[in-house]
């Protein structure tokens, strides 16, 4: 009897291990498929099957005695998850991603807390390596929960987008975080100290809030990517605590992805991590101070003239900025491009890495407007070719086309990689009014000789431009 039972146990455990192994491989292959747009969809199907395999594997775990709450959880989660997948607009992707970091981290933290409670109640105590893993899991988890919630609030504009700062903030944040890490250290020394566990959880939760509080809306791409990485690390730590390799692997993949994206975003904004986290860039607009700012007058161009120039421009490059997405005018850009292409002109889109509010956001917004991804060109690729561009159409972008980043060492954005729009033969800029950009910086490009401005609401201007071009 006991031999039979143990044989069954071995079979069951092997089945679970195989399911987890399959899931791990599926996830890695899924990410690999994402390296090309043609194979990307196959990738997400693979991830789906991997996840289902892992779930089925887990369901046969011998520790499970009742399926009732699992089932209820799965159903409620699906009911909430469905609209979060189906109904969310593409412009809302950044906050959608931020909130899902929150859910992921919350799941990891709760599992960590439950594991800790179970172990302390059992009286056996927790071994130190496991305590370290649980501690990391809950620390990163709760930090990500509150941090992501703050990021969500700022991106969704239920909280003020500008950073909120007060004197001594960095010191307070550092001390809070140091205390959190100190408590983790104490827990590893004495795993039975449940007060330390809960104090650490609470402080980590507070740290998440205070970390994102001073960071402005323009820096959110870095923050969201970084939180992605933390959520991954929390999942990995769960894997260490439970001795579960599929969690370790998936967490490591998430962590690597988030880390890489935040490095890329930081580079694109010419900022270091430390500067994003402690610099509170968006809080005080450095307008005019130190920088010479833009000199000269902005020239306006009539719609007819702009349309005429576009009609006979053989090489057109559109620079879409977040303003375009806010105006919901991507479809109109697509229409204009179609008319121009009908005349045999080439139209491409120059995408700055931080054109949207998260990595790759602008590409998704353009793809939604049925613009082919083959016409979207990355900054590095197109920057050498701006001299051959007849007309460059800048829509709702400001800092990413500011030549001051290249030539004015006093400019706050000096050193940030920008699109070489100033090398194009002619530049049209669509602009709402004569104000400043998101980071509150004057733009030298707008007063250059070759630049003409079309003032007004981007959507209305593009609408009239499209009508004008179709009539030609």
């Amino acid at each position, binding site marked *: 009897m006991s031999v039979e039972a143990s044989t069954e146990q071995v079979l069951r455990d092997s089945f679970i291990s195989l399911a987890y192994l399959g899931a791990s491989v599926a996830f890695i292959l899924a990410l690999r498929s994402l390296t090309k747009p043609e194979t990307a969809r196959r990738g997400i199907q693979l991830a789906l099957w991997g996840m289902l395999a892992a779930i089925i594997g887990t369901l046969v775990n011998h520790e499970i*005695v009742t399926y009732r709450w699992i089932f209820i959880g799965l159903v409620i989660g699906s009911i909430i998850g469905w609209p979060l997948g189906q109904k969310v607009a593409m412009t809302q992707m950044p906050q959608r991603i931020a909130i899902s970091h929150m859910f992921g981290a919350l799941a990891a933290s*709760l599992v960590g807390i439950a594991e800790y409670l179970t172990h302390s109640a059992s009286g056996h105590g927790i071994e130190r390596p496991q305590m370290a893993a649980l501690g990391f899991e809950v620390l990163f988890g709760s930090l990500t929960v509150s941090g992501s919630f703050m990021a969500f609030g700022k991106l969704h504009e239920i909280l003020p987008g500008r950073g909120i700062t007060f004197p001594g903030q960095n010191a307070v944040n550092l001390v809070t975080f140091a205390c959190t890490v100190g408590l983790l250290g104490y827990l590893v020394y004495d795993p039975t100290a449940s007060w330390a566990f809960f104090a650490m959880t609470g402080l980590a939760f507070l740290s998440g809030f205070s970390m994102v509080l001073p960071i402005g809306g323009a820096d959110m791409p870095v923050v969201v990517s970084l939180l*992605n990485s933390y959520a991954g690390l929390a999942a990995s730590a769960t894997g260490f605590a439970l001795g579960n390799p599929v969690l370790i692997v998936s967490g490591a993949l998430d962590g690597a992805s988030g880390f890489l994206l935040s490095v890329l975003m930081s580079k694109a904004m010419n900022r270091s991590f430390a500067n994003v986290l402690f610099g509170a860039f968006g809080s005080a607009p450095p307008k005019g101070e130190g920088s010479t700012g833009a000199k000269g007058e902005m020239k306006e161009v009539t719609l007819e003239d702009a349309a005429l120039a576009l009609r006979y421009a053989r090489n057109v490059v559109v620079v879409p900025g977040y303003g375009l997405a806010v105006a919901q005018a991507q479809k109109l850009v697509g229409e204009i491009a179609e008319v121009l292409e009908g005349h045999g002109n080439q139209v491409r889109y120059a995408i700055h890495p931080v054109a949207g509010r998260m990595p790759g956001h602008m590409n998704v917004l353009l793809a939604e407007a049925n613009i082919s991804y083959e016409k979207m060109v990355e900054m590095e690729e197109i920057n050498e070719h701006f001299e051959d561009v007849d007309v460059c159409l800048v829509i709702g972008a400001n800092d990413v086309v500011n030549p001051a980043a290249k030539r004015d060492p006093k400019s706050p954005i000096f050193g940030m990689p920008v699109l070489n729009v100033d090398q194009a033969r002619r530049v049209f800029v669509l602009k709402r009014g004569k104000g400043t950009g998101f980071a509150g910086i004057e733009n030298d490009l707008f007063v250059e000789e070759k630049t003409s401005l079309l003032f007004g609401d981007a959507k209305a201007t593009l609408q009239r431009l499209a009508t004008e071009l179709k009539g030609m």
Partner: protein
Amino acid sequence: MNLAFAELYVFVLAGFVGYQVITRVPPLLHTPLMSATNMISAISLVGSIVVAGADRGTLSTVLGTVAVVCATINFVGGYIITERMLKMFSGQQQGLAKKDGGK
């Protein structure tokens, strides 16, 4: 202790593989990449399902069930939204092929 080191091996190697693979994802697909990793993060289901079903006390069951809800939101929502985005990228591919065929 040996086991802990084996786990560390897995973590470091998986992180390395992840880094190598993800550096090759073009910026074009960075948003789908993020939502795909979000969906993959739902793997914490394997931990939360056990906690929700192991009947280790009311508090554990509640925490586990809420964790299952959260992870399932990421799984279902993450899959649907990633699929929606990737459809926009691959759908136009077919459109182009058709146009070229027609010429």
